[in-house]
Structures are given as C-alpha cells and as structure tokens.
C-alpha cells in the first residue's frame, strides 16, 4: 500500500490532532477560495494550547517536514530542498512572532509575513495548517486544479497569504510597502519577509535593500534562507553574493548571522530584531537545502523535483526517527 496516497487516512494527521487536542475538520467547500481562511475552522484557542517551548517547536518543525514530503509527493512536483531548509525559520516565526491564527488573518493590525521565495510555499502551507488557518487534510491538494493551494503563493486564492510571490525578487519590495504603511499610520505591527539566496541576485532586491534603509524601516525584519543552492548550481558559483554581511551593513542594515536550523538561535535573533533604532533588520540564516532528509541534503539536486513513492517513504522514515 502506498502510504503517501492522497486518499489514505493520514496517520500523521491523527498524531497532530492528538497533540493539539483538536478535531480534524470536515473537508471544506472548494471553489470559494476567498472565504476559506476567514472561516474559523479550528478551535481559535489552538495557538494558546500549543506547546511553544523551543524543544516542542523543534519537534513541530520536524513533523511539518513530513507534511512537506507528503504534499510534494501528492502533488508530483514542487520544491523540497528550499521548503525543508525554510521550515525551522517559519516555525519559530509563526508560532512565536507572527502568530497567525484563524481569528486574526484579517486583523488590520496583524503582523505581516511575505514569503518572497515563493517556491518554498509548502513550508508556509504547513505552518498555516498547523496554526489552524487551513484544514490539515487540504495540504494534500497542493497544486491540484481545484485547490486553493497554488504552486506558488497567491493571496487571492488564500487570504492568509499576504502577497503573491514566486517571480523572484519582488517580495521584499512588497514587505517594504507594508512596513511603510505601519510607519505612516503609527501602527506597532512588524513586517517579516523571508527571501532566498538565489533571488538576492535580482536587481529589484537591491533596490529594496537600498530603499528600506533610506526610509529607516526598523519595523521590517528580513530573514535570508541561505541554503547555498539554486537551480543551476551552488549559489555562489552561479553569481557570488559574498561578502554578503558586509554589503548589507554598508547598505545600512542591522545584520545578524545565525544557524537557520537552530531554533534557539532563530528565536534569539528575532527577539533582537524587535528593537527599533532606525535600521531595518536582516538575519542571514545559514541553512542546508533539503535539511532533515539525508539524501535530499544537496545544494541543487532536490531543488525542484518531487519524491517518488520509495523516496517519500524513505524520507518520512528518516524524519520520524528524529521525532523519537
């Protein structure tokens, strides 16, 4: 039996349900994508009930690695490398800082999050499902023709996604605009943006880096998922970004450099980035593409291919071993 079948009763889903103490929601109506995330599907107290200690978040991140593998396997295409490298960052960000839950997806004062590296969207869908914003079982509809889970983020299909991205290099500008709105209105919310190293080669990225510092947007916090790989090869062989920290400092950003798989380090960096001293914040998070699955940990090989049945099974077994 194919354990990753879209039709299979999902053991992992039950595990999450047991942990979180929630019921698996009924499958919701398709063809109403604009309404979906505005419906409080789960218990809105979900986040309050979750264990948000660092060890629990590490476990959650690994459980969501399984979600990512299942999603990409069911879809038959997508980007495992850049989703697995990203999930630890998103876990800390969403469960400790952005705190997206069904009762605040439309709050005008909510913290904003823009996933500029849109191809990492399976990781975003995984945290939205775990937050109760979308039904967990819908994750397996990723990239299907009647699903609101588009292959790259689309805000009009899923309002909990703040901006449509996937054409690389544009998300940081959008995040800049959101941070400008907060400043203009004197609102305290933060704007978080996760970028990729490959897309940092785009000219528009450097426009935004120049501009956000000029406007002193210290409510803007950028995290670079620096996984060192892009489609055609290792990032710094294709087009070298280094010395990156020095460049960003010269652009007048507050720069931190961390291990992007160290939950505690991510949390500490995000805490420090809350300070508002006139400079936007940039956290260079060094990551490993495909992190958590030994045979996917390669700068380029698993950038954009889905696991087959055997590969998905092997990957999930490896990740499950991390949970025990």
């Amino acid at each position: 039996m194919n354990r990753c079948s879209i039709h299979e009763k999902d053991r992992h889903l039950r595990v999450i349900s047991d942990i979180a103490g929630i019921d698996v929601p009924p499958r919701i109506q398709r063809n109403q994508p604009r309404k979906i995330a505005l419906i409080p599907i789960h218990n809105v107290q979900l986040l309050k009930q979750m264990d948000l200690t660092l060890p629990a978040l590490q476990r959650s991140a690994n459980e969501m690695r399984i979600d990512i593998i299942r999603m990409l396997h069911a879809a038959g295409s997508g980007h495992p490398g850049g989703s697995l490298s990203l999930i630890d960052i998103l876990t800390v960000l969403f469960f400790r800082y952005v705190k997206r839950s069904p009762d605040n997806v439309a709050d005008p004062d909510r913290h904003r999050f823009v996933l500029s590296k849109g191809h990492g969207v399976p990781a975003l869908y995984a945290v939205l499902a775990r937050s109760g914003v979308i039904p967990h079982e819908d994750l397996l509809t990723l990239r299907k023709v009647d699903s609101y889970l588009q292959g790259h983020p689309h805000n009009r299909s899923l309002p909990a996604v703040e901006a449509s991205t996937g054409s690389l290099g544009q998300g940081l500008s959008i995040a800049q605009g959101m941070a400008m709105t907060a400043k203009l209105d004197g609102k305290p919310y933060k704007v978080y943006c996760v970028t990729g190293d490959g897309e940092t080669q785009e000219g528009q990225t450097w426009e935004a880096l120049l501009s956000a510092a000029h406007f002193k947007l210290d409510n803007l916090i950028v995290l670079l998922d620096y996984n060192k790989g892009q489609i055609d090869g290792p990032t710094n062989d294709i087009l070298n970004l280094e010395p990156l920290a020095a460049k960003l400092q010269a652009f007048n950003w507050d720069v931190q450099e961390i291990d992007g798989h160290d939950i505690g380090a991510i949390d500490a960096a995000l805490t420090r980035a809350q300070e508002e001293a006139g400079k936007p914040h940039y956290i260079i998070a060094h990551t490993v593409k495909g992190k958590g699955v030994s045979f996917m940990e390669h700068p380029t090989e698993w950038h954009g291919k889905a696991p087959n049945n055997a590969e998905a099974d092997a990957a999930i077994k490896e990740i499950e071993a991390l949970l025990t």
Partner: protein
Amino acid sequence: MAKATRVSFGERLAELGATHPEIVVFDADLSKSTQSQIFAAQYPDRFFEMGIQEHNMIGAAAGMALSGKKPFICSFSTFVVGRFEAIRMSIGYSEANVTVVGTHCGVAIGEDGYSQMALEDIALMRTLPNMTIIQPADDRETRGAVDFLAGHPFPAFLRLTRQGVEHIHGDDYHFVFGKADVLKDGDDAVLFTTGGVVYNSLKAAEALEKEGLHIRVVNIYTIAPLDAEYVIQAARETGRVITVEDHSIVGGLGGAIAEVLGEGQPTRMKRIGMREYGRSGSPTDLYVHYGLDEAGIRKQVAAFLADHS
C-alpha cells in the same frame, strides 16, 4: 485652451488628498513632469519619492495597497509599464489596489525621442484580466477619471499626455466609467479614438463632413473594460471602422476593437497609429510625419472610404 492631462491629473489628485486620507502617491524622480509634485507639496507625509527605482516603487505600492492604502504610482508610462512583470505579479495577480499613472505617452512627447515614448503600454496592460485602463482626452474627462479611480478598488492604469489637449467637453460633462462617448454622429463609418488624438480626429471628421462624408466619432476613454456592446452596434450600423491612437496599432485601441469585431461583427477596418519605433522631432512635426494630425487623419480616412465604398 490646451491643457495637458497630466496637469489636470496632478491638480485633481491634490484636491482629493483632503477627502481621501487613504490616498498615497509615489514617484520615481519625475514628480515635476508627472505633476505628482502638486500632491507632494500639500501632503508630504503621504508622498513617497522612491528615486529611480520603478520596480521597487511598484512593489512597495502593492505592499501599501495590500495593507489598506490607495496608492497612485507615477512615472513616464514607458518606464513604469515597462517594468511589466512586476506589475503583473505584485499588482495584477495580487489584485493590489494600485493605480499606475503613466504620463508622457505617445510620439507627442516630441524631441526626447523613442526612449521616453510609451507606444506599447496599452498593449501590455490589456493582457491583465483585472486591469482597468483609462485614457482621458481632455481636462474634464481627466478630472472625472481621477475621481472615479480614487474609489475604484481594483488595479488600474491611467494614461496621460505630456502635451496640451483642447477641451472636447463642456462644463456639464459627467464621467461615466466604461461607456463609449459619441462626440459626433454619422453613418458612413465609425471612427474610434482615444487620448491625445481625439481632438484631431474630431476636427478631421468635421472637415470630411463638409465633403459629404458622415463619420461618427466615438471617444473610448475606458479602454478596459471596453464597451464591446457599443463597438459591435456601431460597426453594424456603419459597416466601416477606423481607429486612431497615439500608440502602436498592435494591441492598443485598434487591436482591442479588431478583437471584439473579429468575434462579434466582422467589419472592414483601418487602424491609424504607430507602426514603427518613434523618432525625435517637434510634437507638431511628428504628428504630421506619422499622419496623426488633422490633415493626416482626414486623408487616411478618405482614402479608406474610397477604397471600400
């Protein structure tokens, strides 16, 4: 008295600043030309000088729109619409409530030459399914368009002239979104026109009237969504269609009408507009050179009707 539609825009936008606190305005180092400077002087907190960064201006405006503001982003049309892929993703696909204001459209900008001329901007923007496109032809129409767009909750493109344009409407004019605007009756042919060449087209038709040719002149200021129902009706009633625009004949007003008629009312057509890259020259000389002045339009319309009588 001739007045550039960019000036009408700048004045009206600044007036709306008082009643529309959600309006924010961006420019990319051309505020003196686009006339966003009028708003900037009155509402400096809500005006964002982005420097020469059209891509980033598009994205930042999208971000402000997605967080509750109503941005107008201003530049020469070719520079801002030329960053089409950013508009496509960050404004169009995201359905960000941004109005892209492109000034200095067409060959009528004159001596600066092709690099500053927008001749393909309508064609690009027409491909986006949710993009409203408005090109007003005079001061009153421009003011009405700005009022409309201030309350329009969708992506939009406003295309404006550098050059002064004569009034075609009286004081009693009221802007109605999405409707064809019949300026002159006639049943020998229908001439659809838009923007800075509406006045010349009207004058050409009035001259032809004296020669016994009855040309209906229809001003299409709402290019998207096009008043397809009226376009088909007018083609059916007259049997011959002419389009006049200061834009490429590919994908602009002529292209839009050809598409509608090809499906709904196949009709003999003559598209008058740009067929090549523009060149430097005075605006007057360029309109003569490209047949967009009154005499040029008149000759081409007469020749078309003679060939297809």
